[in-house]
């Protein structure tokens, strides 16, 4: 696929929009379906392979309006059903189509707190856009109304215009809530609880707040200034953020409630314990968890060889194990750090890959090589303990398993060695055991996820939890939905 420049896309959109506006009469559904789906302008793949700056450049004003006009305004709004936080999608898209960006963002913000983030990282193709009537009519989910891109445009517009006012805060109630973690679930809880006039203190173990949005998701997918703006907005509401503070160690969770005067606590510490394959050679030098690799670059800025003190392994040939968004992020980061070849090794096929289609596409455009139906058997190294290669096995698809996906079955005797000097393991995360281990009476599943009831409450009174620590590794939007629910419960608790 050849790269189309932003200028070309902008000019085409401008021309098409003017033609529609000049007619001065409402569009028929057939005409709406005939509007060209607006492509997301991106940096040229050859250029972006060497820079950390954001790949997707965002719609122009005309593109946003034009794309919004493709919406049929279905009465039953199937898109809303697909949205974990039930944004009134037809309403905000309608406003965006009329060019009333302020109204559009206002509608989104009734349900979502992080539209700039979600517009970028939500898996829309399996949520709102999967159900879109336009996509169905055109027999292609990729041709559904690009709800996420419009959301991103209106949210960015608001921020860039300096019009993002913090939500108003009710008079102080004198009640105090601790929020553990500063990722998406925690940000949501902090905002919703603070709005009701309760004092909120957020605790972050790292030196910068934002959780996975800061250490995990790379700059080229989610610029850090956006996350900083969200945190600044919380602080402007009066939320206090304490960094370098690890609950369970710097202070026990129960002590916050029993000794420090907090009335309730929310645990949103995420799924932060990287899984490994458990294969031979996994502790050789040159094998990293995706968490480590990405944190070195995103949080510690190791890609800035001149200024950063944190080193990063200088790889020539990299294999990334896994097929999710994190695997794509790690592979694309390795490309940007100058690796000669980057391979994704995934034991199923592309159809089963949990990564967003767009991310898989971007990775391919940037030259990442995909090895499907293959998996690592062991990692081999030299006498200094450095990785020299990875022994792989080929797979074929067998009968469907419990997840409904066809189970990959290994092909006997298909072993082969892939010469690599770096292996990045991106097969998911378990939940971090620090809080359950240091909080007596906190019930967890056998996988270590905190058990909550349908109000988000844990087995301990006044302690709530949500996000990946409850769900297992999931998405920003699901974490936000969890946060909303817990915040509502906390607010109800403190009211009584």
């Amino acid at each position: 696929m050849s790269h189309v420049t932003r200028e070309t896309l902008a000019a085409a959109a401008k021309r098409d929009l003017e033609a529609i506006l000049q007619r001065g009469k409402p569009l028929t559904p057939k005409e709406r379906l005939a509007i060209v789906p607006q492509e997301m302008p991106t940096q040229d793949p050859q250029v972006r392979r060497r820079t950390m700056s954001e790949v997707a450049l965002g719609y122009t004003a005309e593109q946003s309006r034009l794309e919004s006009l493709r919406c049929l305004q279905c009465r039953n709004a199937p898109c809303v059903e697909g949205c974990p936080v039930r944004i009134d999608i037809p309403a905000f898209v309608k406003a965006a189509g009329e060019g009333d960006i302020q109204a559009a963002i206002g509608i989104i913000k009734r349900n979502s707190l992080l539209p700039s983030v979600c517009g970028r990282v939500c898996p829309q193709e399996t949520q709102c856009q999967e159900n879109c009537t336009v996509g169905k009519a055109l027999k292609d989910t990729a041709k559904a109304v690009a709800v996420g891109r419009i959301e991103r445009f209106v949210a960015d517009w608001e921020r860039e215009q300096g019009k993002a006012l913090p939500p108003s805060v009710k008079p102080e109630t004198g009640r105090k809530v601790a929020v553990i973690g500063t990722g998406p679930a925690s940000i949501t809880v902090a905002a919703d609880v603070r709005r009701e006039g309760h004092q909120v203190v957020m605790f972050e173990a790292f030196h910068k707040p934002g959780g996975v949005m800061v250490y995990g998701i790379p700059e080229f997918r989610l610029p850090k200034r956006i996350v900083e703006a969200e945190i600044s907005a919380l602080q402007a509401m009066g939320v206090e953020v304490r960094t370098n503070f690890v609950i369970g160690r710097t202070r026990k969770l129960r002590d916050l409630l029993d000794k420090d005067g907090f009335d309730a606590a929310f645990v949103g510490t995420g799924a932060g314990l990287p899984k490994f394959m458990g294969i031979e050679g996994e502790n050789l030098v040159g094998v990293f968890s995706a968490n480590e690799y990405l944190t070195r670059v995103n949080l510690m800025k190791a890609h800035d060889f001149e200024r950063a003190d944190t080193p990063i392994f200088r790889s020539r040939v990299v294999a990334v194990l896994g097929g999710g968004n994190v695997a794509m992020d790690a592979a694309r980061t390795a490309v940007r750090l100058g690796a000669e070849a980057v391979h994704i090794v995934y034991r199923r096929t592309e159809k089963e890959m949990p990564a967003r289609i767009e991310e898989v596409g971007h990775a391919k455009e940037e030259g990442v090589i995909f090895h499907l139906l293959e998996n690592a058997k062991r990692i081999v190294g030299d006498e200094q303990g450095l990785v020299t290669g990875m022994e792989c096995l080929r797979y074929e698809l067998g009968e469907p398993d419990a997840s409904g996906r066809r189970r990959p079955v290994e092909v006997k005797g298909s072993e082969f060695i892939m010469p690599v000097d770096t292996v990045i393991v991106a097969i998911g995360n378990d939940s971090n055991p620090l809080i359950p281990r240091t909080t007596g009476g906190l019930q967890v599943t056998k996988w270590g996820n905190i058990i909550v009831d349908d109000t988000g409450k844990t087995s301990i009174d006044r302690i709530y939890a949500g996000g990946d620590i409850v769900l297992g590794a999931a998405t920003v939007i699901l974490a936000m939905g969890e946060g909303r629910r817990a915040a509502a419960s906390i607010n109800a608790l403190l009211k009584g």
Partner: protein
Amino acid sequence: MNAPPFPAIIPGYYRYSYRLILMNRILSKTQLSDDVFMMKVEAPLIARERLPGQFIILQINNDFGERIPLTIADADAEQGWIAIIFQTVGRTTHLLAEKNVGDTIESVLGPLGHPTHIERVGTVVCVGGGIGVAPLHPIVKGMKAAGNRVIVIMGARTKSLLIMEEQMRALADELIICTDDGSCGRKALVTEPLKEICGREPKPACVVAIGPPIMMKFCAEATRPFGVRTLVSLNTIMIDGTGMCGGCRVTVGGETKFVCVDGPEFDGHKVDFDNMMKRLKAYRRQEEHAHEQCHLEQAARQKGAAVA
């Protein structure tokens, strides 16, 4: 506190609110040898919670600085300070050594890791090599307070590199000093007296060894034939220190463990030291370059100061 007037976007704005809470001010600084320093740092929250065996993670510059694990040599919960002892080996420790009393450290996180399991077991041998004596100090204190008889073996290359000798002498029931060159105490490696003590009747109940990996490896080998339980405290490469990155993983008894959340103490007889030592060298080339750069910059600064 009133909410500040809303700034739409002020990059880095959020940094200022927490500095007020956690200043991490340096209260005292002592140079223990050519490249070893001790600092007392104001850290009331860590001082309150920390127990022997735990460590901190420190960072000088929140934008481009590295996060490094450092052991806690001492602490006072009443006065709200912790003491750290460090050797200038990388960029962060060099920058830290240039700081003075009254300066602050941007990030100090802790206390991290499992505390040492301390109980009355009888005779405990505590072996410290180089600056490994620093984290050993609170363990010796704790073991002593629990009612154990504590034998301390301290080792260093030469006399000038021995640290905390006085403190150890005050605590230990028996203190054995070894230097490689014989400039102080016995001219021997720490494993020599360790083997002798393990041969005594009754055998010591437990050995705690902290120091360079190679020393811990040979301490474990020394005690193995005697079947004396031997704890080692590992100091590996780390980023977050809370279990998130897995950079600190080691092989213990054939299983992968994270030093930050499963450790830092492990059964020395089960640790794969060879793998650990190889992993510690992962960034050797970049580290050597950074070290060289540090000294060049330092020299340039001193030259500049002399000219001015």
